[in-house]
């Protein structure tokens, strides 16, 4: 059930990407979409209410029930990649602003 919330965030971000014309808002929408995806990834690794974080202190602990560690590893990678893309997008946004003095894509096409 809670997975639907993450899918909602994902499509919300996608909606934002559809309708927005402002460069910064587009980047924010992209991040909303990515965060929805990250929550979805984490949610597929949830095993049950009695499961604990996958950190052990010795090998006897391995009998306990842990949540799936792989989605956590994947989401770590995905988040860092998202950070990289966002940083690059913001840098391009800054250079767009330096060129056109506006963040609005419609205004840019008029002036260009």
């Amino acid at each position, binding site marked *: 059930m809670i997975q639907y919330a993450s899918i909602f965030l994902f499509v919300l971000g996608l909606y934002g990407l559809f309708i927005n014309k402002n460069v910064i808002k587009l980047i924010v929408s992209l991040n909303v979409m990515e965060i929805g995806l990250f929550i979805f990834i984490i949610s597929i690794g949830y095993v049950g209410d009695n499961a604990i974080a996958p*950190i052990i202190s010795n090998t006897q602990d391995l009998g306990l029930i842990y949540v799936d560690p792989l989605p956590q590893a994947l989401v770590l990678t995905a988040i860092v990649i998202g950070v990289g893309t966002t940083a690059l997008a913001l840098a391009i946004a800054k250079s767009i602003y330096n060129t056109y003095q506006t963040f609005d894509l419609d205004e840019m096409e008029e002036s260009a």
Partner: protein
Amino acid sequence: MRKLFGLAITFALGLVIILALNNTVNFPAFGEVNLSERISGAYLSEDNVEEVGSANLVTSIVIGFRTFDTLGEVTVLFISSLGVAFILGRKKQKRMNLNFKPNFMLRVGSNILLAIILVTSFYIILHGHLSPGGGFPGGAMIASSVLLLYLADDRFRSNIKGFKLLEGFAGSLFVIIGLLGLVFATAFFANYLPTGTIGNFLSAGIIPIIYVLIGLKVGSEIAGIIDNFLTEEERA
């Protein structure tokens, strides 16, 4: 019109995803996952945990079984920091002015805070194989200390050349450690150091070394990105 169209498309997509996942027998419901059906069941088995020797099982995947992904991840951060410098840092740069004049207390206080942040970040990096954390959050904390200095001191300018040097060396060492795996063992990124006892500080073979390198690299890359955003072209 465009808004309505977008709404319709995204609504339909969301509905399709939810319905499709609901009607898929193979897709486990939330909280009803059976790990023994997944590869993670093997990651949790005693033999494999001991083979890598990391107490934090997420770390044992990130820097153990899937180090190659992490190399790619570091590369993504590297290329985006390179790209930000490439796009923004062409001309001679000076740092942005703050809207206020930082007073003496702020400067001294931020220096004390800086020490605490740095110590914590190194703790987190060094204990990445034992506790939650590791190179990525630790590196981000190092970068946050640079951001703190930028915000609290209007004359501060970080040593970008030094960061570039650190970034290049840490990245190269990361790849070289992987390549040494072909020399001392049989595969790229093989763990050729003794793994020790699980839970000890000195355990898990090459994992802590790689995490330190990643921490330094991530810290210097994000610091470089911050510097590029907080500087502007010199106006004559």
